[in-house]
């Protein structure tokens, strides 16, 4: 037990030294000393609760994805039936109960309709996207399959994550983290953010831009009651516009979607100096926009953002260049936010902020200062207690304790883990608990001496008999730590990480290293009695 060959000593000391070296860059950064950039610099990352920043959890509603998918399916089915040769006439199309159903006006078309729908129903993936059934030989019903819906949600989340990433990049913040979580969530973490509201505005805006013709046949009294003429829909004006609280009727079909934009910039209108957003269509969008404006000169069309009308100007002349201006009672700030959102593309689904944790940089710095101070005082108290209780063996335990803290920090740096505010509490807890092993060993040595064992045998037995309990205690702590890690997120996870790594470093320093030192001392000094 007390035999340490030279290679073992070198190996243990080397390991300790390496871990401590890895802690140096992080330690020096606390006192604002820069680590030479030529050297590798493993650093302990500070969590958002210490460095300041925002953690935002976004959630999409899968039902909304399903509803959008149904809407698209309706368009697809209409055009498939219309473009069939000869045309298949359908009627009574409904999207109630999450299913798409329609009547074939001529029952003999049923086989042709089924054949035409087959590629759409089967989809391009491995699994079928819709279940097709025919009732009474003339009613066709399409029911979304679970797999098909799941794929649709997954695709929507993938592209939503991409859009979120582009929007945050536009803000120019450093090192944002954007991760999809579960089926319908996205975690966004942005360190050192001045204004989290700006970020949330940007992420909360779906930015689905549409241009639709105003239905001038609608009676104002009907519109006020929310009754739309056939083929039209009622859309309210957006908050902050001059017509807030009113609505207008627009034609459902034949509009243009904003997804064919290549650029969007915040600019000022040359005539009235109002903040506007200048947009530029891609080639296809430009030609569709040109056709729409050419065919409808003199008529009003509505600019709709996320289901609300921004403005409904008259088309004074055909717009052929593919460039246009959107006005909508913007401030320079809101116009800029919209421009960013349009540039980065519309979100395929609305995202709601379901959790936010923001910590200002001042609070974080204050926490570090207070945490470090408390840790120092606590360490000194533990050290005093250990030395007055166990003398020389207390000194060994103290040195082991200091090395333990340094190694813990070093290993965290090498592994690139994050130190959070509860993580600081984890450090303090580790300091208080790490000496437990020394207490166990030292008390056992005391006992063995009392029973009359000689010095070497007492020390040897002390380490040996105490090891069993130390081992079991650390395993149970490890179990609790792992569950803490699995359960927690963010700050709590940081706590678990410190506790878990601390278990390994404390066994190493408090048991292995002290045993090596005690063995060295016993061999050199050959004491006949122990003051313990």
């Amino acid at each position, binding site marked *: 037990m007390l035999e340490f060959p030279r290679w073992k000593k070198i190996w243990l000391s080397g390991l300790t030294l390496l871990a401590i070296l890895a802690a140096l860059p992080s330690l020096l950064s606390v006192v604002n000393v820069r680590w030479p950039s030529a050297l590798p610099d493993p650093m302990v990352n500070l969590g958002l609760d210490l460095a300041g920043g925002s953690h935002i959890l976004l*959630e999409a509603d899968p039902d909304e994805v399903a509803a959008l998918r149904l809407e698209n399916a309706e368009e697809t089915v209409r055009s498939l039936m219309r473009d069939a040769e000869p045309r298949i006439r359908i009627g009574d199309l409904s999207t109630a109960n999450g299913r798409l159903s329609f009547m074939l006006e001529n029952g003999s078309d049923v086989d042709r309709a089924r054949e035409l729908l087959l590629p759409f129903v089967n989809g391009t993936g491995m699994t079928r996207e819709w279940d097709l059934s025919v009732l009474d030989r003339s009613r066709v019903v399409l029911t979304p399959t679970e797999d098909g819906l799941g794929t649709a949600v997954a695709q929507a989340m993938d592209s939503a994550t991409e859009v979120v990433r582009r929007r945050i990049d536009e803000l120019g913040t450093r090192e944002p983290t954007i991760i999809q979580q579960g089926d319908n969530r996205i975690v966004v973490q942005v360190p050192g953010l001045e204004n*989290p509201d700006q970020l949330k505005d940007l992420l909360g805006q779906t930015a689905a831009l549409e241009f639709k013709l105003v239905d001038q046949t609608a009676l104002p009294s009907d519109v006020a009651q929310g009754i739309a003429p056939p083929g039209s829909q009622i859309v309210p004006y957006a908050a902050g516009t001059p017509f807030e609280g009113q609505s207008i009727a627009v034609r459902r079909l034949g509009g243009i979607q904003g997804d064919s934009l290549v650029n969007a910039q915040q600019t000022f209108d040359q005539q009235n100096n109002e903040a506007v957003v200048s947009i530029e269509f891609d080639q296809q969008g430009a030609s569709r926009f040109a056709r729409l404006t050419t065919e409808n000169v003199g008529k009003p069309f509505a600019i709709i953002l996320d289901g609300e009308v921004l403005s409904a100007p008259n088309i004074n002349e055909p717009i052929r260049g593919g460039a246009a201006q959107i006005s909508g009672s913007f401030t320079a700030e809101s116009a800029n936010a919209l421009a960013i959102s349009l540039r980065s593309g519309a979100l395929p689904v609305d995202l709601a902020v379901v959790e936010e944790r923001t910590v200002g940089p001042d609070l974080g710095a204050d926490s570090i200062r207070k945490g470090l101070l408390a840790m120092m005082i606590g360490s000194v108290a533990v050290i005093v207690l250990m030395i007055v209780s166990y003398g020389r063996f207390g000194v060994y335990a103290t040195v082991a304790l200091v090395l333990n803290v340094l190694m813990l920090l070093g290993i965290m740096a090498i592994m690139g883990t994050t130190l959070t505010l509860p993580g600081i509490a984890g450090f303090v807890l580790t300091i*208080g*608990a790490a000496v437990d092993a020394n207490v166990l060993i030292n008390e056992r040595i005391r006992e063995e001496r009392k029973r009359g064992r000689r010095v070497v045998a007492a020390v040897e037995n002390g380490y040996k008999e105490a090891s069993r309990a130390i081992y079991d*205690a650390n395993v*149970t702590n490890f*179990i*609790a730590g792992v569950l803490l890690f699995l359960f927690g997120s963010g700050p709590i996870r940081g706590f*678990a990480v410190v506790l878990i790594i601390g278990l390994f470093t404390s066994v190493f320093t408090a048991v292995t290293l002290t045993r090596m030192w005690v063995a060295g001392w016993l061999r050199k000094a050959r004491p006949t009695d122990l003051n313990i």
Partner: protein
Amino acid sequence: MRLLKLVPDDTNINFLKWRMPFYVVSLLLIAASWALVFTQGLNYGVDFAGGQEIRATFVGQEEADIPAIRRTVGGLQDVGDPVVQRFGSPNEVSIRVKLPPEAEGNPGFADRMTRTITDALQAQYPSIRIDGVDSVSGKVSGEFREKAAYALLAAMLAIAMYIWVRFEWQFGVGALFALFHDVSLTLGMFALFQMEFSLQIIAAILAIIGYSLNDTIVVYDRIRENLKKFRKMPLPELLDLSVNETLARTVMTSLTLLVALIPLLLFGPASLFGLVAAITLGIFVGTYSSVYMAAPILIWLGVTSRSFVPQEGAADRQERIARGEG
């Protein structure tokens, strides 16, 4: 140098003599704790109740005008009654608002509330600095509650299983009971004093589960050792011997943990207070339960010196013979 001995050598305290009254008291305390949890309820923080906690500093002011803040926030539409408290220095406050019933099924509600509150505060008090915002929607807080309960149960069961494997089933049951005792009493304290119950407290309880078991394991390890050594000793006497032999270590370890944690409780960041307070409390409860819950239950569960004999492996036997013990 004469070394400090907090616990004198060769103590012979008759712990087990009082096991019945202590057990009755402990069982009553456990029952009272759960009664409190169910009648008083836990004072859920934003993590578990949903809503927001906003921390703010009134820069350049001596003291924050807490009643005025309460009026400002309380007067807002769609915002429930706020709890405004000092948080750290006199010019630092924490404002806690729970979700109103309208928020049900509306995931974005909490975020809009946050916006309303921070906007109103900034408009009313130009010197305010918003230091931190925690905003949790009803759905997420419900998930936290569920996850927390599972984590606590899983930790207790996993650890009890481990003890069962390493010792005997009686010890596993004893450890589980001691842990249940610790968790119950901690929850009871939080219900009694209506201290804020947050994710951090769950983390604290999980840490307590780990550390309180350290004591239990040390005592159990010694009981096992003595069971093999003193085959004829009556069990209560043997348990008393084991507890006394490990008493110095039990006291010392709890003490080192306490002296490390108390400075953090007194001088540490205000946002860590709940976590550290819960762990500190748990250390007391855990130390008590290792002595008075975990050990005596072995008598009722019928542990005998024979419990370990059939299980003794070949390696153990060789070791024993090598040591020259019976």
